[in-house]
């Protein structure tokens, strides 16, 4: 088999798979290298499935709004797989006055960017979702937010890209990128050497080590966060839920199970045994959080817990950028836990960047060299 392609993508997460798909659709030859044995085994298969605009950094908002308006609604049709996209709103819940202040701030900033999001009181919240407890005194409500199935979205992009001729190689851990005659061109893995005209690095936190082999540093850290899933329950509600406190977020899936993510507060110091191990304290903590908001779920049985790494950027928004000082290199990483909802649009932008086209959205805010010392 030939080890060259016009574009080589490092990382088969939803970003890498989406970019591969949009490139292949243009007739570009693409090779995707994945460190793991399974496609999309990082955050793409471990996140809560939120497709939100509200609650985002204003810099990211145009991407999210574009994806929700133009891409998500047609994605199932495009990928010929039901990605279980539901545009039925996001409630970000508050229980205290302080929560309401946080929500108010988020809402004002998003509304200023043109997003239809507004504050509602407890009664209105329970009209939208009657299962929420009386402790909830208000929420921000964005009717055009929603959720989708991240597993099927990732594998849907993969399947379609593969069918279009994209070559995916798993268990190919990239050791280094090499410049050839001034251009990023060669990729060295533990097993082989690959060459491409353009290299897109979309490898989550590992992107940092890979980029450093050509002298680029992305200031990010990683954090192991957890999620859980219940047994199937009768249909209860369709919105995506979040909280001002960020103590949990989640939704009910088409399957009937509830997927919730959440935090114990210990995430920044969580240990790992190499298997993305869950801690013994987080799932109970998430459950206590959920039960305060949705008491009816107290009897729902948890069937699985899991963990995954977030690649947290120092300034909270991703790097989606060509690297001029290393021609041929494009970075798409540090998504900070917000990547899934914007993955279709990022995939499309990356395809334009790889083809040297002007991008249809302004992505200057996501440049790799934007980071400055504080003082």
């Amino acid at each position, binding site marked *: 088999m030939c080890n060259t392609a016009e574009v080589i993508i490092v990382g088969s997460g939803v970003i890498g798979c989406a970019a591969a798909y949009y490139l292949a659709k243009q007739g570009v030859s693409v090779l995707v290298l994945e460190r793991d044995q399974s496609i999309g085994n990082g955050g793409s298969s471990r996140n809560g499935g939120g497709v939100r605009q509200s609650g985002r950094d204003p810099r990211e908002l145009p991407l999210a709004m574009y994806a929700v308006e133009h891409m998500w609604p047609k994605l199932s049709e495009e990928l010929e797989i039901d990605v279980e996209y539901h545009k039925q709103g996001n409630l970000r819940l508050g229980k205290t006055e302080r929560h309401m202040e946080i929500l108010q701030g988020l809402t004002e900033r998003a509304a200023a960017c043109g997003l239809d999001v507004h504050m509602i009181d407890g009664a209105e919240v329970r009209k939208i979702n009657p299962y929420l407890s009386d402790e909830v005194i208000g929420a921000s409500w964005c009717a055009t937010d929603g959720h989708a199935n991240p597993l099927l979205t990732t594998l849907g992009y993969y399947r379609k890209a593969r069918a279009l001729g994209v070559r995916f190689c798993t268990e190919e851990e990239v050791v280094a990128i090499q410049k050839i005659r001034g251009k990023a061109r060669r990729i060295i893995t533990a097993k082989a050497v690959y060459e491409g005209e353009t290299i897109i690095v979309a490898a989550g936190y590992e992107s940092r080590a890979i980029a450093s082999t050509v002298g680029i540093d992305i200031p990010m850290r990683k954090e192991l966060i957890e999620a859980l899933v219940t047994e199937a329950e009768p249909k209860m509600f369709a919105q995506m839920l979040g909280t001002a406190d960020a103590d949990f977020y989640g939704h009910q899936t088409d399957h009937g199970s509830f997927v919730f993510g959440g935090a114990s507060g210990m995430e920044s110091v969580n240990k790992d045994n190499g*298997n993305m*191990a*869950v801690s*013994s304290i987080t799932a109970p903590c998430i459950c206590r959080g959920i039960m305060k908001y949705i008491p009816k779920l107290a009897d729902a049985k948890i069937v699985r817990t899991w963990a995954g790494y977030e690649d947290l950027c120092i300034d909270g928004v991703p790097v989606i950028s060509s690297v001029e000082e290393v021609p041929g290199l494009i970075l798409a990483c540090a998504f900070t836990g917000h990547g899934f909802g914007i993955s279709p649009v990022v995939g499309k932008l990356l395809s334009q960047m790889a083809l040297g086209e002007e991008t249809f959205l302004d992505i200057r805010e996501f440049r790799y060299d934007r980071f400055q010392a504080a003082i």
Partner: protein
Amino acid sequence: MKRYDLIVVGAGPSGLSAAIEGAKRGLQVVVFDENEKPGGQLFKQIHKFFGSKEHKAKIRGFVIGEQLLKEASELGVKVVLNATVTGLYMDKELVVKIADTIYHYKGDAILIATGAAENMVTFEGWTLPGVIGAGAAQTMMNLHGVKPGNRILMLGSGNVGLVVSFQLLQCGCEVAALVDAAPRVGGYGVHAAKVARCGVPFYLSHTIVKAEGEECVTGVTIAEVDKKFQFIPGTEKHFDVDTICLAVGLSPMSQLLKIAGCEMEDNPKRGGQVPICNEYGETSIKGIFVAGDVSGVEEASSAMIEGRIAGIAAAQYLGYIGIEELEEKFEENKAALEGLRQGMFAPENRGKLIERTEEGIPVSMNLLTKGYIAEDEIERYPGVTHRAGIHPVMECSQNIPCNPCQDACPRHCIQIGSHITSLPVVDESAQCVGCGLCVAACSGQAIFLVQEDYEPGYGTVTIPYEFLPLPQKGEKGYGLDRSGQRVCEAQVMEVKTAKTFDHTNLLTIRVPVDMVGKARFYRKIF
């Protein structure tokens, strides 16, 4: 956090054995088990165990369970039941669900002895109510006292399939057929023989085509398979049954070890995903040990020894004993383990066709394909002799590590010798008094007392009998041969029960003299 020296997960044969050895050496030990009754599979095993005294031979599984539990309690081991270990986390932290609360515990050492789970096969209709695992059948009848069905077809001729078939018969169910896709019976011949002589037909090289029924099982169709396990058209056979029981092997239940991050391997010889561990059962994570089926599917007897080794190794790991004691005890237990792992059913012989016994005697092919030794094969075996007066006839035809018969005879009529797998031989010089202790002692129920000259034209056969209702003295019925066919009329001359027989009753039936070599079971005339 509450911390123990040793936390054992699973109160089965290996877990309890490990707990006992640990506690004996001063460790503070707790055992968690998710079931309401301890003992693991032992409490479903109501047959007498094979092996030698050190392997608790001749004792029924559930009694061994009770003994282990008693010993553990006396040593101060805390056995917590209805306690589900839901996860094994870093720093050897266990989360245990007890009633409606979860508890966190830490162990300086942890022993995972979670046993195995049943494998399944699929066929048309396999999801219908009435298709159950063999373990489910055992649980229902032996733990809950409920018959799993009325008329049952068993799939699988390994020891589980054979033993459970016999248990089904014991609790009053009818076993319509015993079926296996393999060309030969997988389990012990003696287990097969006791099922066959009750009249259960064996269909080797057959498997299930479909379970029939709309809402639950009302029947089953089986068919013969060729060497590639493909159905041979035209060989279909139908049985009216209400239950289909699957006994097609076990897989180690090793999920907790995977959660903990122990290095695992897929080892078909051990039954599936098992942790990589050293000779003491210690996994890649120091202080996490394994024993029993979770580290490789075997018998309860070997699980107990593995448990002992791991318990002692945990004691050494925690500094309660020196390495010398561990090494010494390990050698002893290893010898016991090797004793069990020999003979025709030794792990290395799995799946192999062995044509001759260690003594050079051809193995009964009829036993391997029909479940019983044929008339023209039976005389080959050294335990089958003819002589005047009452004497034992030992229809033991396979080299299994087992010797209770030798110890049972007060007159030393029976000899196995130092090699535990040897076939038993009758010592012609010793005089049998017909006490029947050997009949009751034989875990395989393969020993009969025969008297050819009981009265003119009639002889007697004394058979082991573990069914209810117990026939009455003087009662008339039929003698059944090894295949379960009626061969003659028979009259019950004597029914002996004794505490030492441990529920194996001795039924002496009078049969025509030409039938003393054939009649091996009795059924009353209804």
